[in-house]
């Protein structure tokens, strides 16, 4: 425990990670300001918030605009046919899987159609919210900002881990440390300390981002609105249809689940970082290799073979979650439109990362002094 504390202290006391965290925080602040934070946009959002939540005190102009929007898009579930959505998506993307794989995707969309019928019955789609295609709040927060957050927290996690894991080698005390069993076991404590510090910095950045966003976008009385509501819907792939979530997810539940996925991704990144560093024993090249690995994995996420290997490839590629950010827990990617796909990706990628880390640890323990 004492060693863990000292390692964490080493990481938290050094100014460089704080500088990076503050830089990323400023970047997020500027991004939020650009998307929703400028004075004009904030004023408009406040007025629209009143129109959405309290019709009596709303400005007539905003009330009438909101009413018109609701009239146009409020009944999207009445004519929504998920099979047609599937056909259009396949045509637009040029991805038309055949055989058993194609049938499996069709079955997923049939299940989504049952979900649409459930939404129609329960009235989940009728809740009031900011007009989605005007303000695009869901894709701004969970798409654009969340993608930046994933990248930034990943960098913080990688830097925390590599700094601690390579500390002894850089300052030439590795031979002394590896001479004893306790010393060799210290690497595990370092990995844990690096992960905890990375999570700490990531937590700070995430809290800051969410605080700034929700300071700019009033959300009182809107936390219970389901993400599947018609008013939340935004245009995607030149089609306008609601976010068909796999189960009823209110805004607050969606935020929590998004945070869970973020923490899961950071865990995978920590494991992969540890594995690479244990293999390469050089923090600089580990950082470079990790960067190349994630760029390569991101490109691989867009390679399509039209068969079940697409699913296997996506399960073992955590960058797929980065690419689909903003579309988690809902109908989105053709191959991943089934409930729990995010957790399946986290589980499979996480298992692979942990196996790599275990192999790396064995190699490290066999290092000759």
């Amino acid at each position, binding site marked *: 425990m004492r060693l863990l504390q000292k390692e964490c202290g080493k990481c938290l006391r*050094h100014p*460089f*990670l704080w*500088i*990076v965290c503050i*830089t990323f925080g400023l*970047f997020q602040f500027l991004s939020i300001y650009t998307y929703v934070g400028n004075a004009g946009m904030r004023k408009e959002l406040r007025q629209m918030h009143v129109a959405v939540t309290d019709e009596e005190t709303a400005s007539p102009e905003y009330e009438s605009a909101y009413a018109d929007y609701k009239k146009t898009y409020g009944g999207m579930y009445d004519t929504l046919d998920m099979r047609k959505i599937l056909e259009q998506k396949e*045509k637009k993307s040029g991805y038309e899987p055949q055989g058993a794989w194609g049938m499996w995707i069709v079955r997923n969309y049939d299940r989504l159609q049952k979900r649409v019928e459930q939404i129609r019955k329960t009235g989940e789609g009728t809740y009031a919210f900011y007009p989605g295609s005007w303000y695009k709040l869901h894709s701004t927060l969970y798409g654009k900002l969340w993608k930046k957050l994933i990248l930034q927290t990943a*960098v913080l996690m990688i*830097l925390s881990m*590599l*700094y601690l894991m*390579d*500390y002894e080698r*850089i*300052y030439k005390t590795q031979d002394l440390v590896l001479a004893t069993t306790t010393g060799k076991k210290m690497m595990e404590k370092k990995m844990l300390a690096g992960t905890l510090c990375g999570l700490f910095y990531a937590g700070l950045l995430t809290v800051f981002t969410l605080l700034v966003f929700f300071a700019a976008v009033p959300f009182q009385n809107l936390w219970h609105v389901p993400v599947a509501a018609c008013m939340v819907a935004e245009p995607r792939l030149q089609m306008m249809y609601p976010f068909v979530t796999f189960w009823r997810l209110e805004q607050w539940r969606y935020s929590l689940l998004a945070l869970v996925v973020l923490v899961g991704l950071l865990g995978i990144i920590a494991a992969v970082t540890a594995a690479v560093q244990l293999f390469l024993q050089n*923090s*600089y*090249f580990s*950082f*470079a*290799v990790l*960067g*190349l690995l994630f*760029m*390569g994995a*991101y*490109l691989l996420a867009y390679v399509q073979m039209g068969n079940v290997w697409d699913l296997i490839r996506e399960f073992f590629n955590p960058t797929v979650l980065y690419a689909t950010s903003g579309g988690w827990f809902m109908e989105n990617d053709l191959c991943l439109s089934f409930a729990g796909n995010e957790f399946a990706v986290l589980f499979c990628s996480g298992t692979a990362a942990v196996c790599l880390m275990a192999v790396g640890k064995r190699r490290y323990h066999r290092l000759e002094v």
Partner: protein
Amino acid sequence: MKILIKECKKIMDIRVLLVIAVFTVLFYQLFLEVTIYPAGGQTTDSPYDMPFYAELIESWGTSLPREDWSKLDEKRKELEEAYTRIIAADPVLADAKITNYQEFSKTRETFFDKDTLTDEEKKIDQELSRLVFEDSKGSKLFFELQVLDRLDEYKNLQNEDSISLMPGGIFYIVEKDMRMMGILLLICFAILALPYLVRERLCHVLPLYATTATGRKIFDRQFQALVVCCGFVGIVQFGIYVLVYGIKGLAVFWKGDCIDDTGLQLWCKNLPFGFYMLLYMLLVFVFVLAAVVLIYLIGRTAGNYIAGIAFAIPACAGIGFLLIHIFVYLFQKPMDENSLPYSEELWILGWILACACVLWWKMHRDHYRDL
């Protein structure tokens, strides 16, 4: 000279060069427009627009004088006849009695203006859309005809004696790619410089250098070696870009002038496009090479590799931000009449002066610092 060569050898570590090579390939795939060309996104509607412009330029030159404007009508006739042959062979359109391109266009317009279509009309509309967006031959001809429509419109607005056949997309590609190349170079220079500089500190040789006058001159040689190596890497990177540019068939646009069919207003409209692109590359290169001073400062200050990376991230982010905002359409006429012309050059000059001041301060400190 011997010291300079030895330092260059230390900087050009094969592992670092390999990382730079792989990074360059992935960066090209992710961020550069020239890689996705001729796919859309370059102010074009389809992958066929710009190759068609290239074909016209190869046949007629980069601008079409007034007396040759009839060539556009001849080309139109040729494309319409080819499209008519495709339409005539289509059974759905034959049933709907659409037999040529004129009827095809008219029907499309009619359906577009209607609020609702009957089932029969929907079937025909689907077939029309298929010929436009899905059938490769039909799609190619359709978008080539659209290019001719655009040139006809441009022709009617022009008071000059000729029209430019240069597409707006070519300027878009250069503008986007030069900024991304600047970011690529910045990251490559940082990857190259940081391990070398941090390694020198970790080997504890810096105090040793500083104990003698000859030793203190090594700091100058180290910086010069860094500039030479970064310069070499930068030249190779731009060479690769030009090679990819040529392989993609874009070299045909180099002989055109800096005028396009979208009304982009550049100060240098009489410059050949190839020279404009060369100037763009040179200015981006000089800007990023000046930034090597800051990378040198970070490398000399950082206590270890991770600290070096951590300090380099915000520094490179700041330089990248400046780069992206300065190099927006080089030599573009400012929207506001009171704005300074050639403002990019002033920014670059200011940047170089600032970096030179930082360099002078660092070199002066190295030469005279009391240990």
